[in-house]
């Protein structure tokens, strides 16, 4: 931290009062190992530092706006909706999003069914369409609880599903990836595709929220 600012009040200086920040894991054993491995692979010419930077830029450029754009298109274009539900990866490709050869299953929330996605094995997630997954998605609490008590977990996200609707959990443990098509908000008639995309949240695309 910078000590350029002046102190006109007393501090107990037996500690460095650095600002509270997210946990710094840059000196963890795994981070050091990963850094060392990356440097060795660059030295051996397996890949270049520039290629690593390109990949990081690519990863940072992925966001849930990709998935939101697909769902907004499906809401305004019945043919696209049918294509999306039939083959999610091909429908992603049609809008210029590459799912890297991984199949995508899009599940539609309806008046009868509410869908929610989890990966109990690890944290499988359609990163190309939703960006990096949120921390809670990777937590043991979410993974362990949503499969056996989904309605309580949904309630903690502020999502109350009536007893007349089926809650359908999808455990993403193998080769498929999943995205949810939320129910279109009732008051959204006449909105543009871009405006509709703005209504679509990441949590809606995972299925822990409605819109």
């Amino acid at each position, binding site marked *: 931290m910078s000590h350029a600012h002046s102190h006109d009040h007393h501090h107990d200086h037996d500690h460095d009062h650095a600002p509270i920040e997210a946990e710094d894991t840059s000196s963890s054993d795994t981070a050091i190992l990963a850094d060392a491995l990356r440097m060795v692979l660059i030295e051996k010419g397996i890949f270049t530092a520039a290629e690593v930077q390109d990949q990081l830029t690519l990863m940072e450029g992925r966001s849930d706006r990709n998935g939101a754009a697909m769902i907004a298109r499906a809401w305004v274009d019945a043919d696209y909706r049918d294509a999306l539900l039939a083959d999610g990866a091909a429908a992603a490709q049609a809008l210029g999003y590459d799912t890297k050869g991984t*199949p995508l*299953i899009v599940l539609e929330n309806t008046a009868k069914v509410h869908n929610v996605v989890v990966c*109990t*094995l690890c944290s499988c997630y359609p990163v190309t369409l939703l960006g990096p997954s949120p921390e809670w998605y990777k937590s043991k609490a979410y993974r362990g609880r949503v*499969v*056996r*008590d*989904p*309605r*309580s977990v949904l309630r903690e996200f502020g999502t109350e599903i009536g*007893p*007349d*609707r*089926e*809650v*359908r*959990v*999808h*455990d*993403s*443990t*193998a*080769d*498929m990836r999943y995205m949810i098509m939320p129910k279109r908000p009732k008051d959204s008639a006449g909105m543009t595709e871009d405006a509709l995309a703005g209504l679509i949240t990441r949590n809606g695309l995972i299925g822990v929220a409605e819109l």
Partner: protein
Amino acid sequence: MQAIFGPGDRVQVMDLEAEQGLTGHMRAPVYCRGKTGEIERFCGAFGNPETLAYGGDGTPAQPLYRVRFKQADVWPGYAGAANDCIEIEVYQHWLKAG
């Protein structure tokens, strides 16, 4: 490997760990082993993760299905609605007619 099940077929998930002494990386979640559900769809054939995990080539590719279970059949005392379901991807060699 040929896909031997189709949508609507009743299937039971085997416990290859208990029944055949399988060890190591297994994809069929413990909580669905021994449970009976219904094929929701056939997803295609994919490399077997149990050999891929150890540097193998994953052959023969295993047919993969999404199997739909009633939550009440999976979790004793399930607290949600009676028609709540869970769908899990299960490879064919873990399944038998149920």
